[in-house]
């Protein structure tokens, strides 16, 4: 099946920039009981795979996340064209349960924040070569932002696998 462009979301009148939700509010919305933040230390192996997923070296030595049972929530940033997009991703049992754009700083391409777009990620999992196993329809005029969200979704799934695997092994 060919991909369908979500052209209906590309009105030039859309105001793209904005801070839509804070990190603590996003976490409070996801979890009934707010768990403490945990830390994933980025070992050389994790950094190497994260670099392949993002197409650039990952910054920082550690990443924050919140976990309750098999659900983890991640707040990650990736540059769309020039500015970082802050994205909240919730993963349950190695599948994406939610994607939400928390802050969008580019002047164009902010259509990625609409639920019509983000709901495409629901149920997506990671393939063996660290790609999303679902095809995501693009948005005309927001290609770089779409790529950024795809990368962050895949990275959150990869990070989730790391923290749940390490828990399973202990």
């Amino acid at each position, binding site marked *: 099946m060919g991909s369908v462009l979500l052209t209906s979301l590309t009105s030039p009148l859309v105001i793209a920039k904005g801070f839509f939700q804070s990190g603590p509010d996003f976490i409070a919305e996801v979890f009934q009981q707010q768990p403490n933040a945990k830390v994933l230390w980025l070992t050389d192996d994790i950094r190497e795979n994260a670099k392949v997923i993002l197409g650039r070296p990952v910054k920082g030595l550690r990443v924050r996340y919140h976990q309750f049972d098999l659900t983890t929530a991640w707040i990650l940033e990736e540059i769309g064209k020039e500015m970082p997009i802050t994205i909240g991703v919730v993963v349950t049992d190695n599948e994406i349960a939610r994607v939400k754009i928390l*802050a969008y700083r580019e002047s164009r391409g902010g259509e990625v924040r609409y639920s019509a777009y983000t709901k495409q990620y629901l149920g997506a999992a990671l393939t063996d070569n660290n790609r999303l196993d679902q095809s995501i329809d693009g948005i005309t005029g927001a290609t770089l932002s779409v790529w950024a969200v795809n990368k962050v979704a895949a990275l959150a799934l990869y990070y989730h696998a790391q923290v749940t695997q390490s828990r399973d092994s202990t």
Partner: protein
Amino acid sequence: MNIKKSIILNLRWHRRIGLSLFFMVIFLALSGFALNHSVGLKLSNSKLSSDWLLSWYGLEPAANHGFELNAGNWLYQADDSKLFLGNQVIAQCKPPLLSVAEFEQQILALCDDALIMLTAQGQLIEKFTRLQGLPEDISSITVHNNTVYLHGISDVFAFDADRLTVTPTSIILPSSNTAPRPLPRALKEYLKVQGLSSSISMETLILDLHSGRFFGDAGVLFIDIVGLLLCILAITGLWAWVNHQRYRKDQG
């Protein structure tokens, strides 16, 4: 006879205008050529480091001040948003760099939009942003009795670097000087040589010269007049050609 007089008068003014515009036409053509090919010529990547040019723009060299760490290194911001430790770029954050503190083998750098946590060697550990809960209007960091405090306009917060939490506190802290200090001369010279001490590109300079904006309103007016004279030059040139044709026809 009238046509001949008209031709002479027309050509006289055509020559005068042409001569007075000689240098400006050459300059506008060359600068326009450079702007048309600014990407290929990498003009936007070429940064200005001349002090007088920056002062003409009303700018100070960006990296004039920084924070000296206990090890003797300097932490400062240059080239827009890049954080430097000594000569190395270690992170990026929105300027200005407001405050720096050292705590348990970590360096904490407070920028306008984030608190940057670094190892003692300058490796980025993570960022704590406003979106993650960094309070608004935090202007400085201090360390007192092994606790990190963030100072707002009226509030003080205790900061837990492990859990990334901030807690309001009513503690009264001893005053300490957290203001940035002038960078050492050698570091300033290094930044100047590397073209990191300003944010004006060659493309901006050429564009401002081309449009006359470099000299303010008077410069813009001058370029307007040059444009007007170029139009007159074209008209007088056409007029001279038409009159010359009529004159030749009259002469038979």
